[in-house]
């Protein structure tokens, strides 16, 4: 037997958090590609904020507003050049109340 959980809505979880979004200056960018690598595709499941999504052409896109700056995508995809990762400008991004 496994524990039954319906796929949780990450938006509901992120809704609890505080952010100061640096509008128009995303701190992570995905390089345009035809087919994503296995790691890039995995990010659609592995990113804890579900920032990565596969579009209907099978390419992976990012919306970094809910990003918690954990660095997982950097560890998986920066070396291959598929993504560009920087910290948000000072003061912007996630603001943990408790951590």
């Amino acid at each position, binding site marked *: 037997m496994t*524990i039954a959980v319906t796929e949780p809505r990450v938006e509901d979880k992120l809704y609890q958090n505080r952010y100061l979004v640096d509008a128009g200056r995303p701190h992570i960018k995905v390089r345009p590609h035809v087919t994503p690598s296995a790691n890039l595709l995995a990010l659609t*499941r592995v990113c*804890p904020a579900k920032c990565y999504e596969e579009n209907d052409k099978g390419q992976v896109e990012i919306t970094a507003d809910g990003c918690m700056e*954990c*660095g997982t995508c950097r560890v*998986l995809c*920066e070396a291959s050049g598929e993504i560009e990762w920087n910290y948000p400008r*000072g*003061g912007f991004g996630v603001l943990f109340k408790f951590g």
Partner: protein
Amino acid sequence: MIEEKFDAIVIGAGMSGNAAAYTMASRGMKVLQLERGEYPGSKNVQGAIMYADMLEKIIPDFRDDAPLERHLVEQRFWMMDDTSHTGMHYRSDDFNEAKPNRYTIIRAQFDKWFSRKVRAAGATVLCETTVTELAHDTSGKVIGVRTDRTGGVIFADVVVLAEGVNGLLGTRAELREMPKPETVALAVKEMHFLPEEVIDQRFGLKGDEGCVIEAAGTISRGMTGLAFLYTNKESISLGIGCLVSDFAAKMESPYVLLDMFKNHPSVRPLIKGSEVKEYAAHLIPEGGYKAIPQLFGDGWVVVGDAAQLNNAVHREGSNLAMTSGRIAGEAIFQVKSRRDPMTRENLALYKTMLDNSFIVKDLKKYKDMPALLHTNSQHFFKTYPQLMSQAAQNFMRVDGTPKIDKEKATTAAFIRARSRWGLVSDAVRLAFAWR
């Protein structure tokens, strides 16, 4: 632009950065500390158990005003399968001592308190400032930093990189490698609020007593991972983490694992009725001794999580961060007191002092553990927990089966699942890695 030159610049106001800045500033050094968050702690995540001894060595009277949640009187280790847990509990009234040894804390609050101490010791602390680059002279020596706030270089004799596990600066300057997917875990965590009395009742606690649970088993779905549940005064911190390489290979979602843990029949009653106020994610260094990078160079040292100084077996990180920050601060102060330059040769003192501390000794002791658990994750995190649960259930159910047959059935189940040779070799390798 900041025209002054500093004795030291500390990048980051987490555990290691605060320890380093405090140590140097309280010895009269001119210290600048830069933190990208709005306030210290706003980017930081921890379980969080804080070990008193290591903080006492920096701020002896911290108990007077530090934001401490509960002191721990009970620790539970759970091996979980999908419906049960087999466990070991240790509770002792001896932990109710005048100066308790372990506390739960809430990092955002703790880091703000620590930062106030750093400022009081005389350091200049600038938040909302992301360091964008290390500045070098023509010989390659680090001579300062550039930030996203000031135009030019801010100069210092030495730069302490306390930038955490995902530190961009040291890796981009090629002072160390970027963490690999198999040497870092991704952990997700939630804060569940409940009235203090409810927490006291559910865990049998009184006053400031606290209880923590560490759990492993099928909850990580065969990946190398651990879950935790810690009591704070009016909240419960709980979370789960697994190696990034495992997450990627299995295409698992951390929030699904987290919700499975929360819905486990052993966990659900403990958090029933709680209000969730935050969801956080962070990496944890898991590479151990073999992943420790070069720790010093001309004009720089690296401390804490950025240097992979984390004991994943014992779930210790903040204490290694604080201690490495303190030791770096002391080493730098010694070099400065001798009026020697902050060269690679002179800063090697930091490594020598660190090698003689519990940090490197502990990490060395478990040097083979990360690889062992990683290559055998299916067995250690899935097969064995299931077998343990079956064995316990077989032992406890009274159903008329002779005890001797029950024992045989248990042994047979272990051998079927893992083969006699597999069991022996797992046991031997685990014993050696633990030794």
